């Protein structure tokens, strides 16, 4: 197999680097870096004295800034004045928003009409069918049953249905858009490169920043919430679809081409089926992302579980917030297990026809749902009041006890309060003060130099321009404050994430144990653990960083694990037969070969940490995150959008200086 890989012309190979012996790659790299370092040294000798002489030191000069809030506020006003009369609204945008409302309403009404027994039966049987009916799927079916039962027990049945309705529509739309984008990006390198900044922006530009314009244009409630969710949730689907298409085994493609298949046929019969695993992971991530927007949806009146969480927050009631947060996690677990089970079955040959396979199995599922429908006539539509349990009081008591004992009560180690204070004093403050102390032009030079070292002239230019844009927008100081927090969070996330990912890839059992925890971390709304985090760590930037790490970690772990697992077993086998130790195998074979996945992990780390910067603003993170929230809550589109765009620029800079340009080195 490996022989065929080298036989294919290099430009047609996949992004997985051809297995160059590590030695040569390293000398090549060292050589290139050395040359560039020398050049940079010379440049620095010239440019730094020049900079000092021309501009001196200090923050971004005021005369180089442009205030964009004027035009933004004008646009805002135009929308308010014209949205009931202008043809653009009457013939296009309002149709979009009405369709959105109607479709979510329709799904909700269907679920409501099915009654609790019907929904429960449908959820469980669907999960069972996806996992392959029979004994194999029983566990998945049981998970589904447990998830739904707990939602009802917590007294959140109706809110859960509303959230599921919103999710079904949002995920369907996001997946469709994601697959379309991913198809194009997977087939063309140029489109892929052009689309990457767009996908990054979709994920990094905080929903809070564009929520206000969306509400003005599409109206409060479902439409704005739905479109914001789709924008945020579509990119993972697109990225992983593209990754899957590119990763298709060239030998298979070659074979199908030699059999005379046309491009379209090859896509349909070879590339897409081969990418199915990646695409399912993409769908899975899209679901998770969409669920993480549930609370944001509540900020504009979309209702559902998010509203319960949000309203619990105003009375500082962790127990009630948790009671609404758990169903969100459980919906995620149910959907995740169902899609994963379906994914596992891909490639397994299904034995013959039989009653439990193919169409007859679907008939069985529908028959079950219909039977449950008949059953509900006897029982009633709403979840029985007597079968609910209020967890709020015990949870609040437990939370009080934990925070009281962990905050300052731990002997020797001090407790969370002391840790957060020291972290702020010894890491965050010096980092922030150092960044702000640096003269503005030297920051630009630094960004350019790093980006050039890891990439090309092009990347250096993009990164520097993005950094300069931050200055021009007039948020230089705040952005550097945010950057210091993001860097700290990113380092923590990557170290912990890659470590956990390596462990998971090596011990499958660990991965299975960690899975519910990772699900919870990714889908439990940050608003739920905001209060305990503040109680433990205080109103400081440390709290904001913890919120970010918790949210970004699971994606990094998952992508790392998946990447390491996907490493060609033949390469591993070969290195083992050459006598490599486990450590050598990991460091010299698995990790280098998993480089595309690791790069994606870093990219997602950057993206997700930046996505939570805004939530950090809610617990004392200040800086850009606070400005974005302020823009939404005070209706100051200029402030919010400027801060949001600055966050995107930061993302661009970080992405460019962390994503080595593989194309040129190989």
């Amino acid at each position, binding site marked *: 197999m490996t022989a065929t890989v080298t036989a294919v012309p290099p430009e047609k190979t996949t992004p997985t680097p051809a297995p160059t012996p590590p030695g040569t790659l390293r000398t090549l790299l060292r050589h290139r870096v050395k040359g560039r370092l020398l050049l940079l040294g010379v440049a620095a000798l010239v440019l730094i004295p020049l900079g000092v002489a021309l501009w001196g030191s200090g923050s971004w000069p005021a005369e180089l800034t442009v205030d964009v809030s004027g035009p933004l506020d004008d646009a805002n006003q135009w929308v*308010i004045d014209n949205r009931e009369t202008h043809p653009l609204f009457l*013939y296009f945008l309002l149709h979009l928003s009405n369709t959105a409302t109607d479709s979510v309403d329709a799904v909700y009404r269907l679920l409501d009409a099915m009654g609790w027994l019907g929904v429960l039966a449908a959820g469980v049987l669907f999960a069972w069918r996806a996992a392959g009916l029979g004994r194999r799927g029983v566990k998945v079916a049981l998970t589904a049953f447990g998830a739904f039962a707990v939602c009802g027990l917590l007294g959140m049945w109706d809110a859960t249905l509303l959230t599921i309705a919103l999710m079904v529509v949002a995920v369907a739309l996001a997946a469709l858009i994601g697959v379309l984008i991913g198809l194009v990006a997977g087939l063309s390198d140029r489109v892929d490169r052009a689309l990457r900044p767009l996908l990054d922006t979709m994920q990094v530009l905080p929903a809070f920043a564009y929520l206000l314009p969306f*509400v003005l244009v599409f109206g*409060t409630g479902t439409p704005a919430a739905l479109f914001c969710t789709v924008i945020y949730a579509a990119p993972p689907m697109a990225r992983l679809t593209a990754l899957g298409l590119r990763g298709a085994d060239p030998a298979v493609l070659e074979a199908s081409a030699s059999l005379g298949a046309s491009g379209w046929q090859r896509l349909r019969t070879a590339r897409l089926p081969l990418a199915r695993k990646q695409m399912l992971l993409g769908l899975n991530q899209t679901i998770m992302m969409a669920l993480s927007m549930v609370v944001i949806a509540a900020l504009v009146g979309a209702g559902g579980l998010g509203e319960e969480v949000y309203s619990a927050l105003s009375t500082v009631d962790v127990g009630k917030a948790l009671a609404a947060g758990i169903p969100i996690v459980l919906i995620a677990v149910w959907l995740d297990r169902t899609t994963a089970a379906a994914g596992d079955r891909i490639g397994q040959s299904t034995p013959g026809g039989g009653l439990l396979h193919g169409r007859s199995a679907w008939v069985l599922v529908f028959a079950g749902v219909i039977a449950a429908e008949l059953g509900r006539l006897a029982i009633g539509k709403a979840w029985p009041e007597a079968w609910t349990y209020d967890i*709020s009081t015990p949870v609040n008591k437990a939370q009080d006890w934990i925070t009281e004992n962990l905050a300052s009560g731990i002997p020797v180690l001090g407790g969370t309060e002391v840790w957060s204070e020291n972290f*702020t004093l010894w890491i965050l403050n010096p980092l922030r003060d150092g960044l702000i102390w640096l003269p503005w032009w030297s920051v630009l030079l630094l960004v350019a130099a790093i980006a050039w070292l890891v990439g090309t002239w092009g990347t250096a230019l993009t990164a520097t321009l993005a950094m300069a844009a931050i200055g021009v927008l007039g948020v230089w100081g705040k952005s550097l404050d945010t950057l210091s927090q993001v860097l700290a969070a990113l380092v923590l996330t990557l170290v912990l994430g890659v470590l956990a990912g390596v462990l998971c890839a090596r011990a499958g059992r660990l991965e299975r144990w960690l899975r519910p925890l990772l699900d919870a971390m990714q889908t439990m709304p940050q608003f739920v653990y905001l209060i305990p985090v503040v*109680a433990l760590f205080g109103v400081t930037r440390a709290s904001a960083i913890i919120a970010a790490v918790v949210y970004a970690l699971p994606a990094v772990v998952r992508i790392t694990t998946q990447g390491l697992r996907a490493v060609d077993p033949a390469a591993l086998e070969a290195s083992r037969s050459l006598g490599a130790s486990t450590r050598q195998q990991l460091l010299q074979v698995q990790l280098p070969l998993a480089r595309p996945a690791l790069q994606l992990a870093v990219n997602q780390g950057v993206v997700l940490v930046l996505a939570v910067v805004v939530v950090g603003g809610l617990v004392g993170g200040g800086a850009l995150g606070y400005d974005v929230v302020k823009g939404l*809550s005070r*209706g100051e589109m200029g402030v919010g959008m400027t801060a949001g765009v600055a966050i995107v620029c930061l993302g661009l800079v970080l992405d460019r200086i962390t994503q080595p340009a593989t194309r040129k080195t190989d």
Partner: protein
Amino acid sequence: MRTLRIATAVVSAVGVLTLSACGAADTGKKKEVGGAKSVTLTVPSWVGAQANTAVAAHILEKELGYKVNTKQMGEVLAWDALSKGDIDAIMEDWGHPKEEKQYVETKKTVVNGGDLGVTGHIGWFVPKYFADEHPDVTDYKNLNKYAKEFKTAESGDKGEILEGSPDYVTNDDAIIKNLKLDLKTNYSGSEAAQITAIKKYAKEKKPFLTYWWTPQWLNAQVDMVEVKLPAYKEGCDADPKKVSCAYPNTPLQKFLNADFAKNGGEAAEFLKNFKWTTEQQNEVALMIAGEKMSPEAAAEKWVKANESTWKAWLPKK
């Protein structure tokens, strides 16, 4: 053959979509829920305002036979929804001059619904246990003497003043600068974070200084004393950069959608009449936040006990 079929399907789908877009869309106004008399109210994020909404909703449903929908959203978004008619009334507004100018004066889609009867006041507060020990801390002139006591990791060598959610009106950065105080603002970013921090300080009996306001249910649990700032005079907060005075007392207002105010019948009249005192609001707010009752249950309890108060709000037959 198959490609052709798919292409035909796509083309016809796009065609149907385009055709459907030819008609003008419904702008969403005047939607009736099942033909029943219905009122939509916004539920703000803070408890005092939830108390207003809960009590109003209870009386509207039980006494006047309306169906009440509630929608939760941010304040500025609520103003926009009020203007569009997505909601009918805001029961408690702390002053949004920009929106008032835009919707009440220019577009005339929103009208003032009168005083709520509750007066809001913003200020700087220290805990009572600290003020008892150091009585002179309640004057801003002595704050610099105590700045060290309020120091945290976030405020460096200055004293920290804890700020709240971005929703709130604050001139604190200007006040600190113009009064030359050794203080630094720390924006907690949400009411929940601020309350959690205050509760934590109070439990440990630590000194703290915070931006705070009345009426607020937490005041019944944590005793706080206001720090005197230079007295408020009309217009002393006109220029945001030159403010060096205290915050005014704000009589909280109700706002109604203009169409609803005119054609809303008994419901509109009732909401205009709704007026109670700070103490009455706090009573309900504390049931919700302190005793963790549901807003509906708290409203029901209060309505049962205070018949004489709310009977006066009902429309005259």
